[in-house]
């Protein structure tokens, strides 16, 4: 088993999930609460990675962060090295790629919070920000956990985007899925099988968490 690839993958997935919690919550809040007529335009953009082939997304990200684009140039000027084929570049791509997996569960759980509760909080003099932390977030924990876990799991398994944006650099951008592909190409089926099993196990556990959390009836422990 390639522990270096596993390390890179876990680091990437954890960072992606944490960053998506931070930037996904405000986006989801806006999606859920905005009454703007053209909101669906933004919603569609957020959902785009769900339907786009990872190679297409990866291609555009590669162009966008490449040395010839303003964004890539800005980054190169600030940090001193270009973004493509680095861990940071891969992280950027992962965040975009997993955005809907965080934003959609967040927004769905915000949608389900009774607006009357929120209004009651406002009339009690509590600001919108504090209302979020004191009322909306506690009522949306299942959705928040689901979004974080799904974006973590989705990042674990990404392949196309990694290949396009990250390349295949040992210890930097070679993730588990790339490693499995390499092993198979090298006809090392035993090595591939071990890593694949590892990925399968993690993914299954993660989905167990999601489905268990979203169960209406909790049969293992009675609801408190």
């Amino acid at each position, binding site marked *: 088993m390639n522990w270096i690839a596993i390390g890179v993958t876990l680091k990437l997935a954890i960072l992606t999930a944490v960053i998506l919690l931070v930037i996904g919550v405000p986006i989801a809040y806006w999606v859920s609460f905005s009454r703007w007529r053209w909101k669906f335009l933004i919603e569609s953009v957020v959902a785009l990675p769900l339907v786009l082939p990872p190679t297409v997304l990866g291609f555009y990200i590669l162009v966008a962060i490449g040395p010839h684009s303003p964004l890539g140039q800005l980054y190169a000027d600030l940090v001193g090295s270009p973004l493509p084929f680095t861990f940071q570049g891969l992280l950027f791509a992962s965040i975009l790629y997993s955005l809907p997996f965080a934003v959609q569960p967040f927004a769905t759980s915000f949608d389900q919070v*009774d607006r009357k509760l929120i209004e009651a909080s*406002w009339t009690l003099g509590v*600001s919108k920000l504090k209302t979020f932390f004191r*009322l909306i977030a506690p009522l949306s924990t299942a959705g928040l956990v689901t979004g974080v876990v799904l974006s973590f799991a989705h990042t674990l398994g990404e392949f196309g985007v990694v290949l396009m944006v990250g390349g295949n650099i040992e210890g930097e951008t070679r993730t588990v899925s790339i490693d499995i592909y390499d092993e198979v190409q090298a006809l090392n089926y035993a090595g591939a099988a071990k890593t694949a099993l590892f990925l399968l196990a993690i993914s299954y556990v993660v989905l167990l968490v999601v489905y268990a959390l979203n169960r209406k009836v909790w049969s293992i422990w009675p609801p408190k």
Partner: protein
Amino acid sequence: MAAEVAIDITKTFPGRAPISAALTCRIEQATSLVLFGPSGSGKTTILRSIAGLEWPERGTIRFMSRTWLDIGSRIRVSPQQRRIGYMPQDYALFPTHSVAGNIGYGLGDLSSVDRTKRVDEMVDLFQLRGLEAAKPAELSGGQQQRVALARAVAPRPQLLLLDEPLSALDAPTRLQLRGELRGLLKQLALPSMIVTHDWAEALTIGDVIAVMGDGRVLQVGPPQEVFSRPKNADVAQIVGVETVVQGHVIAQADGLATVSVNGTTLKGLGSDAIGSPVFVCIRAEDVVLEQTGSGMTSARNHLVGKVSEIVPHGVIVHVKIECGFPLVAMVTRGALEDLSLDVGSPVIAAMKAGAVHLVPRS
């Protein structure tokens, strides 16, 4: 602290007639202003606009010396800054918070010592002792209502807004809490605006009643005046109770109360204690007119009086009778002719005890 509320707003919801209401009302320290009308008349929209939860597309809302809304000058004060206590129809208690947590929710500006003290005061005032740690789902309807009221009152708002405060309760609890709510509002000495579609509730709680219909404020005045002297046919139809007079209970036996109104005695259903003041409410269609000298009927009340006015409304006629107090009866044109009634004719107005509604009024 005298205060004035001045509202003049227009709000349109898609697919519905616009709500266009103007209302100016002086409210003293403990005045309860009741917005009364059928469902869909726009009263909740008015209340929500005053709370800052609904944004009308035109108009102004002023409370005391402050402007809360002036669309023309782009003034929009947020609900957080209005210092109001708002209780929605289904209470909207926070399910994740305990009773004490709900009551203390709006007290974030206080130190934790002051907050605990204030919550404690509220728990006593609203008789919630022993329930501080309970979650809203564990409470009865009446308890939930008290928690919601305590939560709204705790931050010392300058105006209390209650949307159908009793409608979520079952009928017996509602009857019991009607009187209690009025007492509580007086005790709090807070100006309040209360939305209701129940005329008995409006009469019990209101110091001033604003009758609403079709998105407009039709008449504003003291309860008795609004009910007994509706400005026009629309108001009369909405209030639906033509006779409202003040009286007091003089005898009480097994839920049958005898009431004196200006010396005239009436029997009505009600278990109010002897001596308690009540509004005696009688619908015109419940009054039966008899010629003087006719026989016994099952009706408990036979009031002797004189016809003072006859007002035709198409096939039906409103007959006003002076029988110690002004009473309105509704009869058909044919019945009027058969009884050969005219202004000044002596007449007997009969009504069952069940048609004499007694609304407690302290």
